[in-house]
């Protein structure tokens, strides 16, 4: 298998970033993120860390993204400059959970009726270099959500990690193209691929979507949402959450319309102009978020809206999270009638 020494990582990244913006897990103060390689110091490289604080979804679905510009003059209105980015990007070191999340976003943005132009442009331009996940962390539960931490799904190249080397396995045409670029840096070597230690945290989701169909009115939602404070942390750090708002940047006679992440946790999210709000209470909003991930997403797209990355376990201010919710839902007895 082709491979490069771990010590040569900066050379490899330099080569990749020469032609293409390359997002690499980087430390940023007390947080970490996938950031362009050229913008940070090598000492910030956080390849050894587990999941980044923020998910890489922003690369294909930026938190704030300009859609088009407009100009108004009296009664006249003009729309111009649509801003679908066509540039190429590389995502380096994406674990199976984050790649699974991309697959879920693809379902939302590329299928079921309409294709989202901006998302598609960014997604088509993205080459994903995945990596084995040998030591899932104490908050990881991806294999319970049907993700194989050592799997190759969603990767154009898969990095196999050993003590000294990264094995380089191109899986798609995009991956082959990168291989050509790195050819002189890669050496052929026999690598023994270690096994993943697997996730220590487990949840049982067998039959959950079906069970949840009968649990809409369960008092468990009041109980679970007691300490939810309806901030948007979970939705913003979640790699699958994809709700957005479309807003205007108004400079008077001109401006642009942009979209930005929105959160189903906010009271204003469902508020209609007339004042009616179908999900007025925080219980309603909390329930909708978890049913969406565990039931509705499954019904609509055939997979869970959660990849088990565990970010919400680390980040929720009141330690409410997917694992806690799934476990509690599992305990509840549903009257079969």
């Amino acid at each position: 298998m082709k491979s490069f020494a771990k010590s040569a990582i900066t050379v490899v990244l330099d080569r990749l970033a020469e032609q293409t913006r390359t997002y690499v897990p980087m430390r940023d103060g007390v947080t970490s993120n996938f950031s362009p390689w050229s913008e940070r110091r090598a000492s910030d490289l956080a390849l050894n860390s587990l999941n980044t604080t923020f998910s890489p979804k922003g690369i294909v679905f930026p938190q704030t993204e300009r859609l088009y510009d407009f100009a108004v003059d009296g009664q006249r209105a003009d729309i111009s400059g649509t801003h679908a980015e066509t540039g190429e990007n590389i995502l380096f070191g994406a674990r199976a959970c984050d790649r699974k999340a991309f697959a879920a976003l693809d379902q939302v943005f590329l299928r079921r009726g309409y294709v989202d132009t901006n998302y598609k442009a960014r997604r088509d331009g993205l080459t994903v270099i995945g990596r084995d996940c040998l030591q899932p962390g104490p908050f990881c539960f991806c294999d319970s959500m049907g993700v194989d931490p050592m799997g190759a799904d969603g990767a154009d190249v898969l990095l196999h990690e050993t003590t000294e080397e990264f094995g380089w396995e191109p899986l798609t045409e995009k991956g082959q193209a990168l291989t050509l670029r790195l050819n002189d840096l890669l050496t052929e070597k026999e690598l023994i691929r270690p096994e993943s230690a697997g996730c220590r945290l487990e949840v049982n989701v067998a039959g959950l979507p079906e069970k949840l169909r009968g649990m809409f009115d369960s008092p468990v939602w009041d109980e679970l949402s007691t300490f939810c404070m309806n901030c948007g942390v979970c939705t913003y750090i979640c790699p699958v959450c994809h709700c957005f708002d479309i807003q205007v940047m108004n400079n008077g006679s001109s401006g642009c319309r942009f979209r930005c992440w929105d959160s189903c946790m906010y009271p204003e999210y469902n508020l209609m102009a007339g004042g009616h709000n179908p999900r007025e209470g925080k219980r309603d909003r909390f329930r909708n978020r978890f049913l969406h991930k565990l039931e509705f997403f499954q019904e609509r797209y055939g997979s869970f809206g959660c990849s088990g990355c565990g970010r919400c376990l680390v980040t929720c201010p009141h330690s409410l999270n997917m694992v806690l919710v799934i476990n509690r839902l599992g305990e509840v007895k549903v009257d079969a009638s």
Partner: protein
Amino acid sequence: MKNLLEYMGFERERYHTVWISGSEGEKFAAEMTGVVEDALRLGPCRKMRDETWAI
């Protein structure tokens, strides 16, 4: 407010607090002229103008 803005990097003169009674038209005019003069002297405040929205 003034202190906070200055602390965050905005010049003190960009923010004014003045007591003006409803009957003090001349004072109002003078103060407003002062506001404009201060702003012109300081020039455009780039801090709140983002590259993101440059058109």
